[in-house]
């Protein structure tokens, strides 16, 4: 059967239109706005060149926001993956108890972030929260989890890790189960110590899963918004203000659209770099069978 040359293009046209209108156009519009001064309402958009970027980079608050975002991302990804790795090794066996625990740690993943935020606001409440009540039982001082600039970001990291590990554990267990058993048998015949068995066989064989989790972990953490918006609103003293919340705050609370767009462009650049690394490294340093 002969198919007209234009037919495939016709068939993908609807998808392409949706993609252009809702994905590509906003990106270009954002870049356009980042060179302008606009308050969202007035019909005039004043062209200001690179002024927004200059202002951003000399704004100490923006630098703190970047620092917060990087700290949040680094520790969230580090703890999520390390804890998930330990849990997977523990849970990767048969028995109803292991299946139960596996299901239990996965459950936060299916709860909406808003509910999670509400739940943890109660758990971490300084006066009536579950955590401080437990601490008081063992005779320890109360911790002002979310209200102290020194602990607020760490508290948000705990929440993110709590939400992540279920999904991360699932992915790593799947990775563990795909490692052929005979490799461990060969290792046993090679007199491999359990430490070397982990570092030389298990971990390298898990590298695709761990690399995948690192990348999606970084992308997710850089884009963190819901928990911050609901729990801390970037405070106290901007200690939890991260990039996406900062963009939202400038754009939709202070109506500095040009300024927010410039921050958006910086976010876009960061995310593009991470994605680029993902595709570059894929298939090179990571072992795939």
């Amino acid at each position, binding site marked *: 059967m002969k198919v007209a040359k234009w037919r495939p293009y016709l068939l993908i046209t609807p998808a392409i239109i949706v993609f252009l209108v809702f994905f590509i156009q906003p990106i270009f519009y954002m870049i356009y706005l980042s060179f302008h001064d606009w308050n969202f309402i007035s019909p005039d958009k004043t062209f200001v060149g690179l002024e927004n970027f200059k202002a951003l980079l000399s704004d100490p608050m923006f630098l703190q926001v970047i620092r917060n975002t990087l700290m949040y991302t680094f520790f969230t990804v580090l703890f999520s993956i390390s804890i998930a790795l330990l849990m997977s090794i523990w849970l990767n066996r048969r028995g109803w108890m292991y299946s139960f625990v596996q299901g239990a740690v996965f459950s936060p993943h299916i709860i909406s972030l808003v509910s999670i935020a509400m739940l943890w606001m109660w758990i971490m409440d300084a006066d009536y929260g579950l955590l401080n009540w437990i601490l008081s039982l063992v005779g320890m001082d109360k911790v002002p989890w979310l209200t102290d600039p020194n602990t607020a970001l760490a508290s948000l990291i705990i929440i993110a890790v709590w939400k992540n590990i279920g999904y991360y554990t699932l992915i790593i267990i799947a990775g563990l189960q795909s490692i052929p058993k005979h*490799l461990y*048998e*060969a290792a*046993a*015949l*090679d*007199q491999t110590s359990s430490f070397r068995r982990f570092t030389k066989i298990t971990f390298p064989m898990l590298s695709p899963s761990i690399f995948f989790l690192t990348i999606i972990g970084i992308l997710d953490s850089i884009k963190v918004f819901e928990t911050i918006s609901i729990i801390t609103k970037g405070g106290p003293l901007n200690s939890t203000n991260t990039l996406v919340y900062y963009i939202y705050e400038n754009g939709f609370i202070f109506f500095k659209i040009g300024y927010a767009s410039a921050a958006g462009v910086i976010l876009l650049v960061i995310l593009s770099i991470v994605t680029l690394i993902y595709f570059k490294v894929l298939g090179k340093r990571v072992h795939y*069978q």
Partner: protein
Amino acid sequence: MAKIQLKNVSKVYGNNKVMDDMNLEIQDGSFTVLVGPSGCGKSTTLRLIAGLEEVTSGEIWIGNHLVNEVAPGKRGISMVFQNYALYPTMTVQGNIEFGLENMKIPKAERKKMVDEIVEIVDLTEYLDKKPQNLSGGQRQRVALARAMVKKPNVFIFDEPLSNLDAKLRGQMRTELIQLHKRLGTTFIYVTHDQVEAMSMGDEIVILNKGHIMQQAAPMEVYHNPANQFVAQFIGTPAMNVISIAMLEGKLGKIIDERIFYIGFRPEHVEIQTAEETTSGIHLPCELLTIETLGSETLYLVNSDAGQFQVKSFNNPLMNTEKIHVTIPFDKLYYFDTQGNRVYVDELPFESMGKEVRGEVLI
């Protein structure tokens, strides 16, 4: 050096008894082949010896040591797996060296040992490649090198050639035989392929349903099978086995009451070209199929005694429908109802002589 002994070994998985009270002795320096249909317990035997599985009861001795409680790596055994089990994240060199590193052998010495081995298996130029970039035969060599470099007392092979194509398999077969001659260590080799077993082993252990059917040299197993299972498992095509009820009345009564089956190999059946009388069972047959294999020809024939196969090294009989065959008396095997071999001193038939009874000449 190491002789291997299994004493009253049983292995149970859940409710499934795969090996029942097995006694097996593998001589030091032998090339012993464990052969049998799938599920016969041959791989289990191997894994028990290697220590990858624990015995349910019984003892395993390697040399003078009871090894039931000894870790796999400490038994002086190297194993070549069916799917090679190479470490995919390591290079060829890394794979071969891994066991040596674990044994904390110094780097310089390690390098010497690896170089020596890769020379033998012809892998020198592939040292930095990863296993997934090698062909099946090359992977096989890496697995072999990894096993050899540890200088074990016993080599264990779990169907190592089954993933190779026919030509390469033949080549590796001769290489393994040469390797055994050169190293002089004990080889234990598992296969389900009786041709491999016959051609490689100097001792064959035939297993069925977790029991040893026979343990002997290849030609002994062929010429003197202990039971119907071995008779039909070894040899291509399998031995023809006919119930005596099919022959009764034609042969005259069989006097030995133990005998229930009569067996004969397809290659021992003679096709009569003239009406001559040699000492044997004469049967007129109808030709059903002909398979020409070049050097030999296989016939499936139908007679009053049932269907059986005939193998001939003469030119194929094309356009022929009926033939006469003779099965020589001295090539007959007798089995009882259980399929165990019945050894007889003289022919167990009531009347002998060159007379015609029915259509059968005796």
